């Protein structure tokens, strides 16, 4: 056994955890190695010092203070004094409520973003350069929303459907193609 192997086994040696053949090897090494003997001496001095540390025990008032803490805890469950106590006592309920609100808000946002009117637009309108840049949700990308002043116009061109319906009730698309082309042209020119 060399010094490196012995150092790795030092704890086992001091704690009497080495099996007999290995213990004999370690002892044989110790007989020949003064440096490892010194290590053993120093380390066992340290372990003895740790064992000899005075024991710190609980004070006389320990149990009384603990009972007071328990009583306070029971009280806070029955009469929450502030919002934080209320929250920490019912954190699961609050978390479930928050998750439910998030899901409902998410559903609402997705629902509001979906525009059924655009889905029913005629192919001509869908291929319009202005409208083709809009997502299937019928809302232009955020970058365009900020950059283009045409948002109002696009919205009014989509809402045109209502007035066209009144003019041409026989038209299934609800739009006069000529009128629509003119309006798209107008939108493109203004762009």
């Amino acid at each position, binding site marked *: 056994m060399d010094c490196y192997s012995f150092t*790795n086994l*030092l*704890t*086992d040696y001091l*704690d009497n*955890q080495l099996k007999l053949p290995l213990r004999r090897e370690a002892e044989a090494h110790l007989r020949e190695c003064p440096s490892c003997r010194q290590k053993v001496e*120093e*380390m066992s*001095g*340290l*372990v*003895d*010092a*740790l*064992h*000899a*540390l*005075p*024991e*710190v*025990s*609980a*004070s006389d008032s*320990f*149990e009384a*203070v*603990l009972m007071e*803490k*328990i009583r306070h*805890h029971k009280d806070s469950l029955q009469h929450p004094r502030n919002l934080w106590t209320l929250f920490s006592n019912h954190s699961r309920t609050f978390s479930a409520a928050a998750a439910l609100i998030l899901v409902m808000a998410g559903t609402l946002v997705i629902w509001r973003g979906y525009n059924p009117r655009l889905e029913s637009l005629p192919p001509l309108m869908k291929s319009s350069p202005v409208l083709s840049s809009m997502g299937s949700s019928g809302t232009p990308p955020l970058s365009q929303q900020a950059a283009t002043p045409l948002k109002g116009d696009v919205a009014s061109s989509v809402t045109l459907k209502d007035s066209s319906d009144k003019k041409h009730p026989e038209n299934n698309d609800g739009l006069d193609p000529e009128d629509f082309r003119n309006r798209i042209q107008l939108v493109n020119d203004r762009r």
Partner: protein
Amino acid sequence: MRDTVKYTDEELIALFQKGDERAYLELVRRYKDRLVNFVFRFVASREMAEDIVQDTFLKLYTSSHMYKEIARFSTWIYTIAGNLAKTELRKRKRRKIYSIHDMGIDDKEFEIPSDTYNPERESRSAYQEKEIQIAISRLPEQFKTAIILRDIQELSYEEISKIVGVPAGTVKSRINRGRQKLQEILKELKSK
């Protein structure tokens, strides 16, 4: 309930889970001193150690249903106390209210439990208690836990392995390296 002293820890916690508060009190009496001693070596303040151990017992009171009989009660309660002590140390480190790492050997804030202080015993030891406590406080957390549980609480490798949640081989290696590191720190303190 008959005399609670006759029951094992596991029987007592089972009784408490059924609502017997005397079983709870018996567990508190059995463990309060060893847990205060254990936590004191972590936080180096008796008041804080008592506070943490009371919180440990409060957790036992409010969450006794979390204990399952697959583990020994002692392992479970040591784990809770150890985790609370570590959390407190981390909080302290973050707040930087007080750091034992910055303390020198002459710092007066360092607490020695006066009722158990024995100068005669100390003079026989190679190291002074104050030096040892400072050196323990400077150990990395995983070595500190291993050294306190093994060399101060005198628990077995297997029990430490369950409390810390690592294999017994890792525990041995941490104890070995922890002792070497502790010795280095103590030599450094002596040379100052």
